[in-house]
Structures are given as structure tokens and as C-alpha cells.
């Protein structure tokens, strides 16, 4: 059984397939908790005690994913990092640009969804404290990790003949 330290040290060597799976799990974990709560618990289809372990598992996807992605990137997505060389800095800037595009797309999708719901049901969409709280939590979880997640998604695998060299951070 590998120790936590061994696992953490192995994170920078993750293959792209694993990284992309982690990004997807991180991305769907918390939103599924919210959607599941709204669609099955609130209408009374499932009791809260039944939902709790499922929600915990889904939340674990996001938490473990966030930790693993930070462990993989190790500061290479930070704007203030001065220890990157020109290729790494270029890659980081592309990750930030794509993150910005993703945020814009998500906001636009939410606005469209709200307009569709309003026009189809004829009801006003009320921006309650709960909704603002969920939106703030979602932003607090995902905005900081987004550039690191995009970088982990984008970076190609290290060729086999370079795999025995040191890890990505200098």
C-alpha cells in the first residue's frame, strides 16, 4: 500500500488520461451534489439519510480531484510564479485564457437556462439567498482550481525516454 507521501510524489508524473479523468470528476462532483439534492431530496423521492453517503462520495470526487490537480501542477499555473521558463509560461498563459473562456461560457449558459426556464414556465426566477450561497460556493471551489485543471487537461504526456528525468518543477 503506497504511503500518502509516495502518492503525492507520483502526482507530477500522472498520465494525461488520468489527469483528464480527475478533471472530469472534480468538475462533476459538487454540481451533482447540488443537482441531486434539488431533484431527488427536495421533492421527497429520496430521504436525506439515503442521499448523504452519495453526496459525500460525490463531494469526495471534487475534494480529492482538487488536491490531486494541485499536486500535479505544483504552482505552474500561478500567475505570479517567476520560476517558469518561457515554454511553461506560455502554457500557463494559454491555460488562463481558456479558463476565462470557460467561465464566460458557463455564465452565458446559466443565463440562457434561466431565460428558458422563465419563458417556458412563465414564472419569475427568484434569486434567493440559497441560490446565491450555492453560486458563491461553486465559484469559491472552481475559480481557483480552474487554471490548474485546464493546464492538467492540456499538457501532453512526457515521452518515455524523458520519464526517468526529474519531475516538472525546477
Amino acid at each position, binding site marked *: 500500500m503506497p504511503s500518502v507521501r509516495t502518492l503525492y510524489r507520483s502526482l507530477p508524473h500522472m498520465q494525461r488520461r488520468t489527469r483528464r479523468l480527475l478533471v472530469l470528476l472534480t468538475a462533476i462532483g459538487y454540481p451533482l451534489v447540488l443537482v441531486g439534492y434539488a431533484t431527488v431530496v427536495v421533492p421527497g423521492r429520496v430521504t436525506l439519510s439515503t442521499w448523504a453517503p452519495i453526496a459525500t462520495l460525490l463531494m469526495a470526487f471534487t475534494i480529492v480531484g482538487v488536491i490531486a490537480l494541485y499536486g500535479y501542477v505544483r504552482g505552474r499555473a500561478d500567475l505570479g510564479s517567476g520560476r517558469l*521558463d518561457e*515554454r511553461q509560461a506560455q502554457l500557463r498563459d494559454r491555460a488562463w485564457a481558456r479558463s476565462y473562456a470557460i467561465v464566460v461560457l458557463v455564465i452565458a449558459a446559466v443565463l440562457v437556462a434561466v431565460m428558458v426556464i422563465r419563458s417556458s414556465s412563465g414564472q419569475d426566477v427568484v434569486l434567493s439567498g440559497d441560490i446565491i450561497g450555492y453560486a458563491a460556493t461553486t465559484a469559491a471551489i472552481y475559480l481557483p482550481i480552474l487554471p490548474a485543471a485546464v493546464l492538467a487537461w492540456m499538457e501532453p504526456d512526457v515521452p518515455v525516454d524523458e520519464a526517468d528525468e526529474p519531475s516538472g518543477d525546477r
Partner: protein
Amino acid sequence: MTRRPATPIHNRIAVLRAERGLSRQELAEALDINYQTVGYIERGEYNPSLDLAFAVAAFFGLPIDAVFSPEPFEPMSVRLYGRSAGEPEESGAHA
């Protein structure tokens, strides 16, 4: 970064490194870059800036056009012996 640059710049870094018995890590440390960046440049998957290209050339003590070129480099065997590998020698070569 998996995409190749639109205008590939060919280079002899792998050959020069092998001639001097240098690892990517040693070259990277000398140039103050990440060792993976050396690999990306060698494979033509990343075009270095002018600054870095001049630094690489200076490190090997060669003019920049001996290290980087927009055209593929001629193999060393052709340059040294005037023929490609596997090509038969001319009959009068020993005369």
C-alpha cells in the same frame, strides 16, 4: 502543446548534446530552463524565443544557424562523406 508549431524550426540540439555527452537535465540547468523544454525543442514541438535560441547556440559555441534552421539539416554522414547511409561508394573512390 501537443500541436507542432505552424513554422517548424529544425535543430541539431540532440546531436550536439550527444556529442558532448550531456543529458537534457544538464543542458537545461546550463540554460536555466526546464529539462522538458529541451525535449520539446529537440522534437520540434516548441520553437524557442530568439533569446533562448542564441543562448543555446552560445552554449555550444556555434553560430545560431549551425544549431537552428528553417530547413531540415543534412545528416552528418552526408556532410562528412558526401553520401547517404546505404548508398554504395563510387568505383573510383580508392584510386
